[in-house]
């Protein structure tokens, strides 16, 4: 089993990606010269008492998604269906946090396409959190950003324990 990763949010609460999710994300690493981009949505919950955020689940690419070496386009309805299903199955606690995708580079940075997509979602989508969480899975690291209300993109710092 993989260990959970923890990141500090601007409001000082913690965002934790659970071990099972880390394990699943790493299976999509673009290691092979021909492996294509993968992506999906991130699902999680807010803890009572501490208000920490827990990422429990992700969706993985569907047939209807487009996967290229340097491009990924996800379809709306298939991923949305899972968001809806998990929300009702979890007694309304599991909800949408944001998006993840892979990069064919060791330590990923967001492309212009990525940044525009994150800002657009912040503006147009009906989100659960007051910000959007974005994960990029590189070949050597997993990096997390949030996009806030002012469309400011902030890279989160990892917490070492």
């Amino acid at each position, binding site marked *: 089993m993989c260990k*959970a990763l923890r990141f500090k949010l601007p409001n000082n609460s913690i965002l934790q990606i659970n071990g099972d999710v880390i394990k699943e994300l790493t299976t999509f690493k673009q290691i092979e010269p021909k492996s294509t981009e993968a992506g999906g949505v991130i699902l999680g919950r807010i803890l009572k008492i501490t208000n920490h955020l827990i990422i429990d689940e992700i969706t993985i690419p569907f047939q209807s998604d487009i996967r290229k070496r340097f491009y990924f386009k996800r379809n709306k309805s298939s991923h949305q269906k899972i968001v809806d299903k998990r929300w009702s199955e979890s007694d309304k606690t599991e909800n949408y946090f944001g998006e993840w995708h892979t990069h064919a580079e060791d330590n990923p940075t967001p492309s212009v396409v990525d940044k525009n997509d994150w800002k657009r979602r912040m503006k147009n989508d009906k989100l659960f959190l007051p910000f959007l969480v974005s994960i990029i899975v590189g070949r050597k690291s997993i990096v997390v950003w949030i996009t806030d209300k002012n469309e400011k993109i902030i890279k989160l710092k990892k917490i070492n324990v």
Partner: protein
Amino acid sequence: MNEQVQKSFKDFNDKIRITDLDYEEESNKILREKRDILLKDIKSYFDKKNEDLDPKDHLKYKWFNQGSYAMYTGVKPLEDSDFDIDVAIVLNINKDDYENPTIVKKWIFEALDTKVNRTVKWKKPCITVQYTKAGEERYHVDFAIYAGVNDDDKYYLARGKETSNTSEKRWDESSPKELKNKINNKFDDAEERKQFKRVIKYLKRWKEEKFKGENSGTGKPTGIALTALAYSHFNPRIKDVFTNEIEIDDLDALLYTVTQILNSSIWSEIEVYLPVSPYNNLFSEMTLKQMEKFKEKLTTLKTKLEEAQGNIDPHEATKLINKVLGSDFIVIEKEAISERSSRPAITSSGESA
């Protein structure tokens, strides 16, 4: 320290602990009754034996609970294993008058070996009464027999079977009462003492889970060996170090104990001595390979507990602990500790590069 996780430890302790045998409690009734029937048989045996003896030669004895019941560190057995009760019988005899201790042990054997529904067995350190129910072993009572009136004022345990070699038939110096007192009085503070007992119970249940179906001959550590390890390595975690306010943290106390046990045996074989005479090494029967296996399992326990301690999600933390302490450690449900939302988010399709 997470209060929800601490609550799970508390519930776990309530689930696995065995309450005092002599309290009026339904769960102990059968065990207590069985023990008392056996004690009655022992009494009748000696009453009868004494009829033929001169009053000054009468054999007298006293009994008391020993082992985990007496130390409040008893853990309910897992399914398919049996309860055990340890009883000390101290006779008013001098060991020097009985060169062969099995003569004395035989009295207890004869006193108990009278009924069809019980099996009485010779074991090296005791006489055991095994109760069987529907073909399954369910509980046993171990009678340890001591010579209590010796020239040096010490107790001596009668060891050996009738069929043992002469060297195995011997009187071993023993201090059952001192052991009980030492464990029970290690900490003056009630909270510290209770946490110490809980950590012992957690270790004992962990052992039952991780050595399922094995016995001490195949490398499973004994309950007393784990108790002695906790005795030397446990340190209470009941207060916030900064504010000095009560903050009970069983996870940290257990993790600290496990870490100290491992640290103390990095470069050496694992060993721990009974804290009272005869101060024997309680791991002396383990082979090197068995010790390695034990340390490996302890290391896994340590890793999982560390991961649980660092995990901010009480659901994930208790899931990790459940993997090492077993199914009686309840995993906190996600839904119980997470906020509800009014609707699922609505998200559009999107692209990334």
